[in-house]
């Protein structure tokens, strides 16, 4: 069984990012980047399925500029077997990413496709669902547990109202939530070994696809900041302020 994992390079979540003053984007040119935390969880899950003997091959794919190879190498060091870099300098909308990934799916024919539930820069939470739609596959979004059965996969999903478990026919698309697993760190020998693993570079243009943006970004702005308030000395003053000043009690 082959697993395809789609990973994205994002600004480290601990970095405090701000919009550029001209409103044309984010001030992130020099910010530290990492693998999107949800994608790390997807890689970890795939590697565990391989260690359990369920998966035979784990292929990772990332769409972006050459710098994403750093994240692909990292995934190889964590245990993925092979990497695909779809090279483009444009930043694509989720629909376009899904269209490109669909082409990869049609070439690789994986049984399971793992994605993060959301990228922490765009916060879209769309790509996995779109890919599932385009492939005509079932989807298990926001997964906190995955149980691979013989001809189907059982996915426990985190919902606003609790949890639910779905049985999905294979092939299936699964998007990971934070509690699915705790990703490991790569070891030094594995980082060395990863350098020898295959990483194929494919120009986006060779995957003839309609990837023109559908939305026009007019501006990126800072949100209204909350004013820092006051410190109260004790609980009595707090209750008093909430009653008399804020009038919320």
């Amino acid at each position: 069984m082959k697993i395809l994992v789609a990973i994205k390079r994002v600004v480290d979540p601990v970095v405090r990012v701000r919009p550029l003053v001209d409103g044309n984007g984010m001030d992130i040119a020099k910010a530290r980047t990492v693998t999107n935390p949800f994608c790390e969880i997807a890689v970890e899950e795939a590697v565990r399925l391989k260690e359990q003997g369920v998966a035979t091959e784990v292929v990772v794919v990332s769409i972006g500029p050459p710098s994403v190879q750093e994240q692909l190498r990292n995934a190889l060091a964590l245990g993925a077997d092979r990497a695909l870099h779809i090279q483009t300098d444009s930043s694509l909308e989720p629909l376009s990413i899904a269209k490109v990934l669909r082409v990869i799916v049609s070439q690789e024919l994986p049984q399971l496709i793992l994605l993060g539930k959301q990228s922490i820069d765009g916060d879209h939470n769309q790509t996995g669902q779109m890919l599932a739609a385009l492939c005509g596959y079932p989807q298990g979004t926001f997964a906190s547990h995955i149980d691979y059965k013989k001809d189907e996969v059982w996915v426990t999903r985190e919902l606003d109202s609790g949890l639910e478990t779905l049985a999905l026919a294979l092939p299936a698309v699964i998007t990971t939530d934070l509690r699915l697993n705790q990703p490991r760190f790569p070891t030094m020998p594995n980082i060395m070994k990863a350098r020898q693993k295959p990483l194929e570079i494919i120009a986006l243009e060779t995957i003839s696809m309609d990837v023109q943006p559908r939305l026009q970004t007019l501006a990126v702005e800072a949100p209204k900041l909350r004013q820092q308030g006051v410190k109260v000395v004790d609980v009595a003053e707090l209750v008093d302020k909430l009653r008399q000043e804020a009038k919320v009690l």
Partner: protein
Amino acid sequence: MTLLNNSTALVVIEQDATGFSPINLKVMGAIECLRKFTRLTVDLLVVGKDCTAVAETAARIPGIRQVLVADGSGGEHQLSEALSPWLADLAFAYDYLVMGSTTFGKNLLPRVAALMDIQPVTDVVAIESTNTFQRPIYAGNALMRVMTDQATTLLSIRASVFTAVRFGELVAPVIAIAPPPAQVLSRLLSQQQVQVYTERPELTAARVVVSGGRGLQSGDNFQLLYQLADKLEAAVGASRAAVDAGFAANDIQVGQTGKVVAPELYIAVGLSGAIQHIAGMRDSKVVVAINKDPDAPIFQVADYGLVADLFTAIPELIELL
């Protein structure tokens, strides 16, 4: 601001354990905002099995043309594999397809969008014209203003920032339509619904929210927060660290990857105020932080900060209320 001619919107009604979800009234609040820019004919869609009661409730929402109800086993459990192709077919006839940005909407809308070959605008927090919207990115560190001119505009609404509409006197017609056909790609095995506290408001609809973090130290200690919540008729929320540690259920996580709330009063107890947490509560009207560390970042967004040990402060607070 030119008022465009007529347009039509289809709003997907969300159901929860109690039936009609209160989220719908806030999504309709966003529809009211859209009405400022266009004369809007609104249809509501209720799909599922045994959902006529929900449809009858939805029919009391003011200003709508009709409620379409698709009742049948194909729509049972509202699995997106069944709903999406069927909904894509329906939605082509409308200018807008709208739902809440809940786990239900997040699961369904992108799948429908891809089938329609449309890039949706998700997590809408402001409607600025018929085709210009704002959505947060980078955990709310920035707002992006986007314009779309696609055949149908697909929107998911961040309900917490819109004002709920009230039920009206009139009842709109409820029209039965054919439900989605059965499918074999997915089936529900089980639901582990968390306890529904009927005596406590729902987290995203509550006037007051009390949230706890890792500082609570245990699930048992979370009872303290529930006692406080009872006094305030509040809902209880949690930080990710508290959920990960098993102190609280996943469905009460507030933040970038959990629920987004905007109550009149948000009381943050024993949580540090990571940016990912603030993303879920920054639009609250009044924020109170109780933390023993005077440098905790939560104080930067708090209207009232109390530097104290929560284990003494919370019992005192309960006493004084």
